[in-house]
């Protein structure tokens, strides 16, 4: 069968120019591909390198745009060197560059030179979550008055539906404080106390909101986001954090717009 396929190809079938050009675009080990030429017999080494440079530099720039605080923490030179390795290892699979860098936090965790900055990956996770929230679908957040419609005896069974922008990033480090300190242009004050911080990212309207969750809050919201009932989620949060304050957490989740709607729970 293979022979027939080969014979069946039209005589002028183009050789695969993308297959010839592509490998060297993100791999400096490749030489200038055959069949690539300059005018009047000129060399094409620097010419092909223009494309290589465009690809690598523009993708590093794309990562710098997604992770500005991460870059500010490491410094530009460190960040670009790290990003270059990432671009070569995990180039984008989508033409939408605001989706790029999903594996960057894990890559940072494995990146040897970033080991002295163990909080860096979580800071990058908050930045990735921030951009996801920024581009998330426009959706109304659940309002407090709608919550008031639930009869008190059925509240424990209620199941909430997440707003499309909602993200939670849990950290053993003060990742949110580090994110906030480095996201802007202003001077960075030294962060003295290394307290673990859980971060909630939402966008109830057009502005992305980033806030720190109180004790047990991340556990509570994570359970709710997984589809657990209100009662079960609250019980689980209390189990893991004895000082979990249900009232405060519910007020916070409504104000931040964590959910879009709810439905009566109970066995299906």
């Amino acid at each position: 069968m293979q022979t027939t396929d080969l014979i069946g190809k039209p005589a002028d079938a183009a050789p695969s120019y993308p297959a010839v050009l592509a490998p060297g675009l993100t791999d400096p080990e490749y030489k200038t591909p055959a069949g690539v030429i300059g005018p009047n017999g000129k060399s094409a080494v620097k010419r092909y390198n223009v494309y290589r440079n465009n690809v690598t530099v523009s993708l590093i720039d794309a990562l710098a745009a997604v992770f500005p605080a991460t870059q500010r923490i490491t410094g530009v030179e460190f960040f670009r060197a790290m990003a270059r390795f990432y671009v070569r290892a995990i180039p984008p699979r989508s033409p939408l560059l605001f989706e790029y860098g999903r594996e960057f936090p894990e890559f940072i965790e494995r990146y040897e030179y970033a080991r002295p900055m163990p909080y860096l990956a979580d800071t990058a996770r908050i930045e990735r979550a921030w951009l996801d929230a920024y581009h998330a679908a426009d959706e109304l957040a659940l309002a407090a008055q709608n919550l008031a419609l639930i009869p008190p005896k059925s509240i424990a069974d209620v199941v909430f539906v997440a707003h499309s922008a909602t993200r939670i990033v849990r950290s053993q480090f003060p990742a949110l404080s580090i994110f906030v300190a480095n996201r802007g242009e202003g001077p960075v004050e030294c962060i003295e106390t290394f307290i673990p911080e859980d971060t909630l990212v939402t966008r109830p309207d057009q502005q992305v909101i980033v806030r720190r969750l109180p004790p047990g809050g991340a556990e509570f919201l994570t359970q709710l986001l997984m589809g657990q009932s209100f009662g079960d989620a609250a019980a689980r949060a209390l189990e893991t954090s004895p000082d979990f304050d249900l009232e405060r957490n519910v007020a916070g989740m409504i104000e931040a717009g964590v959910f879009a709607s709810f439905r009566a729970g109970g066995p299906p």
Partner: protein
Amino acid sequence: MNAVTRIGNVTPKVRLRFPPFSVTGLAGTSFKHEHLQVIVGQGKHDGFFEVHAENYMGAGGPPHRALEKIRTDHPVSIHGVCMSIGGQEPLDAAHLERFRALVARYEPALVSEHLAWSTHESTYFNDLLPLPYTKATLVRVADHIDQVQDTIGRSILLENPSTYMAFSESTMSETDFLRVLVRRSGCGLLLDVNNVFVSATNQGYSAVDYLAEFPMSHVGEIHLAGHAEQTDDEGDPLLIDSHDRKVADLVWALFESVAARCGPVPTLVEWDSSIPEWPALRAEAEAAQAILDRHAPDISGSANADH
């Protein structure tokens, strides 16, 4: 066509209908979010804005609010950068659908894409990569354009690329390739005059000769932009299509000659990095407008078709 009718029961935010502004004879600029407040503050002006389609392919959020605002007062051009029309693989169906939805949503005056490829074996390279000009690539590119045009329900303008190298297997000139593409697919052309200058310098031919061969009667939009200069392996100038500075004097001169032949074709000044304050960008568009105005009124009626 744009009469206000009740359309379904979707929320108002996603069924905005926009005014059917004309772009004929107008100069415009790339739309950058950092300019939004100043542009809105100044109110309407006679100009249009071009956006890269992919930047508005997120589900929602501030980018859409910005584009809605701009589109309410001005004509908009949607310029696709990632369709990989010049690639060997089938077009990405999901990306094509996003493109269709964006065009349907914003009702742009102009829709364009590039004679280039950017995706291979599902890796996206984020650059406009070149292709050899052969019978086989011509057939495939024409098929891809057909597919895009069928999907979005309107014709597109295809942009001539800036190139840094060539292929030994090419059998046609770029202008011949574009001429046949236009005939086969019914698409129009986006003539990027800076790309002509960059490619001509890099490939060792005359920009004036290239433009003499260009199928001008199919040009639906013109691009102008700035370029940077490096050197090739022999130490001669190698120009980079950088979009990071003012339009070069020699490119303005070529544009003047094109405007004299084409008449009032909408003309865009692109500026994508090292972006200046809005007045400086708008000043470039006003310089283009002055040239368009100088050539618009009488010449368009008496100009000869180019082929």
